[in-house]
């Protein structure tokens, strides 16, 4: 059995920038360089634009549902940027911005939200697993992908995302334990946005922090200010690199806040008031980073325009993609159930085809 040493998180979430964008003592955490921060900032702006555009498309009735990460973009960005090319990202339904930051075509991501099909992108193309809906289940898949890679001698690291609520599920426990026992290089990254739909964190756990769950598995736990994009990136990069070097998992909890309702279908006025939400506006991850980069003269006016245009291009691409007719064929209902369809499915496919052809008459 290991020692306690290094398994417990810091007393408070680590930070590199305060809410005014002023650098603070990071307790040993190193500020990423300017090039990297600019990259992160670009990704933040695009992430925000993706969130806003998706929200607008929902309001226009063009998407059925969208769980927004508005306010959590520092986590989204950090999760994607901390990975190397061969690494894997395991996102949830809320992590669309991270999926896009990782390189997946936003229009492919929208497949699910348009109701065209389930997972809309090729998970192998960018090593991004399908966005997970059944909570915490994907964390075990991440362990399996990591273990398979390790068995083949590859140095792949897996970034596995989940929310605060999902930490209550049995699969969270089993995933951390399996990863620790098998020394599977998975970074479990919990975005603690204080709510699981309507349920606040205090009803979810009585632990000092979610990062304190690590020691129970022998997994080092860390806490970071989830609205400080510099700190999130630095913490996740450190976690990824240490997982890569010693093969062991890491648990990182980012403290952030869900600024909007759970999804458009939710009514958050039933369980929280604006007095609680408003102060978080001042902790916005974009403005904080922007202030810092402007002060450092890394973010010029020209650069800012360029980034805004890039974000606008993504939004336009989303609008155009949603408008495009991508209706799936009913015949496809039967083609992916098995590699090799059963006689029963062939019969049922023929039945439907016949029904449709008769309707056609």
């Amino acid at each position, binding site marked *: 059995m290991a020692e306690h040493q290094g398994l417990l998180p810091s007393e408070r979430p680590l930070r590199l920038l305060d809410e005014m964008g002023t650098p603070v003592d990071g307790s040993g955490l190193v500020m990423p360089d300017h090039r990297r921060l600019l990259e992160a900032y670009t990704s933040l702006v695009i992430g925000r634009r993706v969130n806003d555009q998706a929200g607008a498309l929902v309001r226009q009735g063009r998407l059925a549902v969208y769980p927004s990460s508005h306010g959590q973009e520092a986590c989204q960005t950090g999760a994607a940027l901390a990975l190397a090319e061969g690494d894997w990202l395991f996102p949830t339904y809320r992590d669309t911005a991270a999926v896009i930051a990782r390189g997946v075509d936003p229009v492919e991501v929208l497949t699910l939200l348009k109701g065209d099909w*389930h997972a809309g992108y090729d998970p192998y193309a960018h090593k991004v697993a399908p966005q997970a809906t059944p909570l915490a289940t994907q964390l075990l898949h991440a362990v399996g992908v990591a273990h398979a890679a390790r068995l083949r001698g590859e140095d792949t690291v897996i970034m596995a995302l989940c929310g605060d609520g999902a930490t209550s599920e049995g699969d969270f426990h089993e995933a951390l334990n399996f990863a620790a026992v098998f020394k599977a290089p998975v970074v479990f990254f919990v975005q603690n946005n204080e709510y699981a739909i309507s349920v606040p964190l205090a*009803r979810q756990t009585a632990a000092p922090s979610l990062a304190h769950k690590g020691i129970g598995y022998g997994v080092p736990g860390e806490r970071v200010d989830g609205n400080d994009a510099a700190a999130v990136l630095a913490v996740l990069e450190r976690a990824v690199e240490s997982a890569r070097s010693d093969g062991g998992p890491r648990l990182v909890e980012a403290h952030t806040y869900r600024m909007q309702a759970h999804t458009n279908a939710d*009514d958050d006025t039933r369980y929280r008031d604006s007095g609680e939400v408003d102060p978080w506006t001042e902790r916005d991850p974009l403005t904080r980073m922007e202030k810092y980069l402007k002060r450092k003269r890394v973010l010029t006016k020209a650069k800012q325009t360029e980034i805004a245009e890039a974000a606008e291009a993504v939004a336009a691409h989303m609008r155009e993609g949603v408008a495009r007719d991508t209706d799936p064929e009913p015949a496809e209902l039967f083609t992916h159930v098995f590699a090799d369809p059963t006689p029963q*499915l062939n019969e049922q496919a023929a039945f439907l085809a016949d029904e449709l052809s008769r309707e056609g008459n």
Partner: protein
Amino acid sequence: MATEKLSMAQALNRALRDSLSEDPSVYVFGEDVGPLGGVFRITDGLTAEFGEDRCFDTPLAESGIVGMAVGMAMNGMRPVVEMQFDAFAYPAFEQIASHVAKTRNRTRGRVGLPIVIRVPFAGGIGGVEHHCDSSEAYYAHTPGLKVVTPATPEDAYHLLRESIASPDPVVFMEPKKLYWAKEEVDFDRPVPAMGKAVVRREGTDATLIAYGPSVPTALEAAEAAAQEGRSLQVVDVRSPVPFDDETVCAAVRSTGRAVVIAEASGYASVASEIVARVTERCFHSLAAPVRRVTGFDIPFPPPKLERFQLPGVDRILDAVDDLQWEDQ
């Protein structure tokens, strides 16, 4: 106030309220059932009215919810728990199959578990993946569980009250696409008990056997058939467990032809069971094999394709047409 026009969601809410106020041992809990009132608002206002002890949010863990319900029921309570969606009851499967269903029998009758597990289920609302499973067969196949599914607000009210009062565990499956349809509900005139099927429409040519979300579709089909001069009887099973062989078989014998309708994938399903038992019992009254109109044996489709999976009027009428009328 004997009758009131209510949606099924409101009727269920009323049933919970009436049970909570009449029986202090009733407790309602689950994910988001407190201040939010549940994602479908079935528990709307209950925490405010009965307090945080009687209707409360749990941590996000379904096995935990059902497991805790088992313990509370062992200790004198009547827990009514909500699974947020059909597929999100699966983490609780071991608790349901190995404990909820078996405890009375394991303990030789000493420990009964009066638990109601509410499961909003099935499709028809354009839900994304994992939100539209028809999971009734898993429960119906498990000895020791009663499985109930209402098709009308009035049934929803009375059957939920009866389920909560039942000494045995009930998986109460709520057809989510019917949550919002309104109907006059009579609170005082009890409906037939759980375990009784009901003939929802008389007819002489063939019998449609349906439950839960498929009952309104069956009625629509019967209406359409009537316009074409064919008289279809519609039976609402109401509780797949206990099954009402008597009513269903009498109905089938009276027409000599039957179609079973269910949204769930057909293979090894409640619909298979109904076909099998009706055939076993009514073989010599049947002019044609009992037909099934069920979901295909595929994972529930994405929203844009779900209409092809759901039993619709045309598909039901096609099945009726298939009942070898030329034999007559």
